[in-house]
């Protein structure tokens, strides 16, 4: 932390590009966070905490080659820290409705589809934290196994076995189709 930044209160308006990053990535980050933690409020908390840290260290974040990738790494690291804690502090200043929504999430596409999605999300949240993280990173963010292994501090083979176990658990719960006859999200 530089001497100047030590005495300067962090403001989004002063951080060139921060608001654009929030506008572009807060929705996807929230989606990813939903898969990493076990409740909607924890997901919101996680996203807020990561964005706040990014704002405080914006000089470093914005100097990264891909700031979006940088904050996503922060999100995963923060989630790992989150799992370690029994509970976290929470700022409840923003209601879920105020968060930027992704297009598909905002569509009212019927109770059946919502039911399927809720069931999958519920089953996902029942998985052990690391299995859940592997599935989210591998299938939602399409992160290569080697990078997942690096992010989560596990071997690539463990990433693969965690993914397999996670998928098997979701299939046992009936929220994913079998490999031979995958069940699409209706």
């Amino acid at each position, binding site marked *: 932390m530089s001497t100047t930044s030590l005495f300067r209160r962090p403001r989004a308006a002063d951080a060139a590009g921060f608001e654009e990053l929030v506008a572009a990535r807060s*929705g996807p980050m929230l989606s990813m966070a939903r898969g990493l933690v076990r409740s909607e409020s924890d997901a919101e908390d996680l996203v807020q905490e990561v964005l706040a840290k990014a704002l405080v260290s914006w000089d470093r974040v914005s100097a990264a080659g891909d700031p979006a990738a940088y904050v996503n790494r922060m999100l995963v690291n923060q989630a790992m820290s989150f799992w370690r804690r029994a509970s976290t502090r929470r*700022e409840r200043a923003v209601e879920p409705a105020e968060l930027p929504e992704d297009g598909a999430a905002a569509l009212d596409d019927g109770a059946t589809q919502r039911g399927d999605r809720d069931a999958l999300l519920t089953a996902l949240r029942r998985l052990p934290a690391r299995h859940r993280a592997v599935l989210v990173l591998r299938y939602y963010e399409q992160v290569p196994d080697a990078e997942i292994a690096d992010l989560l501090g596990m071997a690539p083979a463990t990433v693969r076995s965690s993914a397999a176990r996670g998928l*098997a658990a979701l299939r046992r719960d009936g929220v994913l189709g079998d490999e031979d006859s995958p069940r699409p999200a209706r």
Partner: protein
Amino acid sequence: MNGPTDLSGGTGGRRDDDSGHLGADGRDVTRALRAALGAPQDDDEAEAPGGSAGARPAAGRPAARPVPASFLAAVERRAARLHRRRQAGALAGAAAAVAVVVALGGLVLPQLGSMAESSSAGSAAGGSAESAATAPSGPAADLQDEGTGGAGPQTFADSGGESRQGTTAAAAPPSAALLTAADVTAFSVPVQDAGTSDETGQQLPLTACVEGDAGVVQPLALRRTDLTADPASLPAAAEPPGLVERVATLGSAAEGPEALARVEAQLPACTGPGLEGTGPTTQLDATPVTPVGGEALVLASTSGQGSPTLQVLLVHGSTLVQLQVTSDAPDAQTALDQLVDTARTALERATGSTSTIPARAP
């Protein structure tokens, strides 16, 4: 290169160097997960080659949407809080540096003064070194008095280590009362400092297990440090061990035992697997970490990966120390046995007392 056979009977799922191609089944999983997590259903994006975390191709990223001002304001408020903590840490660091300089000056200058006196007395009159050592005077002694704020070098020389320890403790920043990486010997790998923060003003949540709630305490001061294993030093597939320490200064000595009693009372509700994949929570015999004149509570569980986890609550006077530990020991009891010395150090640091948890018999 195919990976080892995975639990589904496949041969490792994907190739490491081809991880972006998930196959038809993988794409279905991707679509289902994106729907469940509330992400855009964009086939082009869903089938995009894998990238780094968050580094999906720009064309596949959802278009930016206006961010509510209230959301940005909430992020700014939280950032301001983080910033204040960093400011406090930086200022405390500067104060500590000044204190160290002053203390070193108090230690070094008397020796210089003594040497000067001894040399002078020896060469001029063949006088005894004893008189020089016990009666510093002249410019060096003036500097000593100035530098140590009037405490003078005789304080250190006369009262020995105890006085020196007290002076250093008084000048030390709050973070000095927390554990450091060097204090943690409970794991098979070294740990590193992952951050210390002053959480004064916040509540300390109490819980016996992940989904439990035993209320909170509102301490007068609350500090926290995170100590984590360096992933580079871990064997493949190992879960990184780590430790979170919180030190709470309570408003009264009665609050600590009450807090422990509340957590203990919640324990019977923690008999099943937790939402995070954790194992049932059990209470271990806390005798090895129970401080003299204080209380301790040790709860054990397992992480989602099966590693032993411990929550150790130590109460001594109006100080409450909470240690949350993920261990790489084979079982919880071994993890506790390995943690005793660290727990003792934590409590001694937090209370400033050196007679808290009795040392084990050799």
